[in-house]
């Protein structure tokens, strides 16, 4: 016969571990948040822009899932526009980030001009493919 109090101890240990894991996750998120708050504003703007683009892409994919992919070219151009502009924004973020030693000598205006130009070309192609 197993003693009851031994059984109880095992359960408590497991709960404590779970609690520590959940509290560990909470601590991780809290630290991420504080670290993020330290990033400069312009980088935060770019991050927001990326999130916006991805969310738009997700909504388009959901729509396609609902109604079917009939004008497939339109779907592709819409999704690729969002994804493409997000990718370009990520590139901009990399180039503008001061902590990034690789692009130390690149002025941020130059990176911004590249971003604008590439976006314009991307959207020309997208508009052509939209049909």
């Amino acid at each position, binding site marked *: 016969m197993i003693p009851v109090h031994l059984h109880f101890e095992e359960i408590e240990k497991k709960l404590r571990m779970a609690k520590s894991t959940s509290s560990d996750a909470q601590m991780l998120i809290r630290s991420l948040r504080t670290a993020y708050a330290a990033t400069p504003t312009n980088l935060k703007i770019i991050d*927001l822009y990326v999130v916006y683009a991805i969310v*738009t892409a997700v909504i388009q994919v959901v729509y396609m899932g609902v*109604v079917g992919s009939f004008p497939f070219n339109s779907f592709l151009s819409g999704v690729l526009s969002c994804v493409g502009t997000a990718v370009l924004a990520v590139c901009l973020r990399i180039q503008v980030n001061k902590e990034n030693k690789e692009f130390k000598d690149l002025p941020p205006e130059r990176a911004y001009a590249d971003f604008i130009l590439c976006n314009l070309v991307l959207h020309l192609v997208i508009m052509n493919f939209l049909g």
Partner: protein
Amino acid sequence: MARNLRLLGFLALIYASLSISGAAVIRPINEAHQSAALELFVPINGSFGSLEETYEALKTFQILGVEKGAEISHATCPVVVEKLGSSLSTSKDLFHALRVNSILGCQIDSRTFEDVASKLQALIKDANSLLDFHYAVGGLLYIKDQGINVILSDADGTFHSIKALSQSDGRWRYDSNSAESSTYAAGIALETIAGVVSLADRKLDQSKIGIVKNDIVKLFDSIKSYDDGTLYFDEKHVDASEYKGPLSTSASVVRGVTAFATVASGRLNIPSDKMLGLAKFFLSIGIPGSTKDLFNQIESLSCLKNNRVSIPLILSLPSTVLSLTSKDQLKVEVTTVFGSAAPPLTVSLVQAFHSDSKDTPVLENQELQFDSENTIHYLDIIPLKLDVGKYTLIFEISLHDPENVNTYATGGRTSLMSFVTGSIKIDKAEIGILESGAGGSETLQKLDLSRDSTLSLSANHLQKLRLSFQLITPLGHNFKPHQVFLKLRHETNVEHIFVMESSARQFKITLDFLGFVERFYYLSGKYKIELTVGDAAMENSFLRALGHIELDLPEPPEKAAHPPPQPVDPYLRFGPKQEISHIFRAPEKRPPKELSLAFLALTLLPFVGFLIGLMRLGVNLKGFPSSTVPAAFSMLFHAGIAAVLSLYVLFWLKLDLFTTLKALGFLGVLLVFVGHRTLSYHASTTAKLKSS
């Protein structure tokens, strides 16, 4: 198989018709030639063309007895007069003009004739080719006929010059330079020599005439023959430029030989059979289709009609088909080539052979009686008990006056074909269905084949159809016609033809359907029965519908042959065609409008979220340049970007790529310039801030 039988029957018919006319049917000249001449020789604007053609037309009409001179003398006589009067006319022109004048009789004074005669005499002295001699001598002959006294001064010399051109085989060359000799030239030479003899002032040496006679005999050695006994002359080599064809060549020789025979004393050693063969050749042409051929034919026959060698007598049958039913008589005509009366003679039928027994004659030595009213020799064939069929009749002519034997060419034995037709009796016709296997009960019913019947039989594939009958000629013998066919035709027009066999006494056929099941393509149903019996000697050939037979055949196995497709009415293809129903791609399913609009709104939501987020981050426009020029540039920069984006919207809505690219290029250049200024200004201000 049915098609093969049909082809066989057709070929049998063709063969039968060809064997009748193995030789062309020879009949003397009659009104058909007259009407043909009127059709062929048609004057245009009152003339027949050149003088040579005019002569041909006039001569043909003159021989056939048609009066045409008055019509064309109006247009032709001036030409004749002009040619005779002109000093530029060659001997050929003068010759043709004189020929035409001899028929038309234009008003020409004797002075013109004397001038022409002296010109021609001068030409003869200088002549060296055969044709030169021919035209000159011929012209002088025509002038002599007009009454002018014309004498050939150096007849011996002319004769020698012409004779020098002759060859050892009886042919002549056209002149001393040409290597080839020609039979046509021989005819011209003989005609010219005859003219020389008649124009000479004193009689020519007999030895010279004898030499020419030998030449003629040698020339006749080269005569050619066809299978039906007609004889003709042709050139040895068929040279394209000078070749004139057997008709023209034979006509030329006949002209020359008959002209020479007229002026030469004594007889020409030409067998009468050859003259008869030539006459048959000209007659066997029938009615020629061209003017030259008709002229050659008619003129040669008129030369042969009264020639001094031997006058051909033509034996012909006015009708080659004799009917026993209408009790026809065998009629034979013996005339000259132009159909005029022959001297008194008797025709006898030496032998008559039936086509079945070519060795034993059916008749021998029957003399034909003469009907002087219609100038026809006839024989009653009913008492001779001739049966129906095809006969080869051999006739012989015997002249009453023994002196005529040398004058006329009768041709020994003449063989002609004839048909005797009659009404065939059909007897003991029976038809019925038998059970297969011997000893089956025979329920045959009698059939009357003199008219269509409407029998209604039925059989299955285990039974047989039997049909038999007898064919009896008017004399009571068994008759075997060319065609005895039984045809079964299905409702779907698929036909099967069977040939009936003949035994000694009757015709019969037994169709064992068991063996024919596959041949009939396993088609059951109603078949129409038709019987065909036909022959050239049968006056009552028939195609009888006998009725129907309902055939019950087994089901076709899978690999059975299909019946051949029946010919479709060829006019059906001009009718309307089948309607085509096009298959279009089904249009895609589109979502309902409200759903799409809802999602459109949903897509715009993140933008709103983006703007809200920007405001939360504290975005401001503090970095915007304050001084005017940089501010303007910044404004332009943003305006440029907005312009490009609106251009894209326009591109999507209605523009095409080329206009867009053009505008984009323009805007892009502007944007690059402005952007560069703005961004470099911004960079410099940031650098200033940093350094400070």
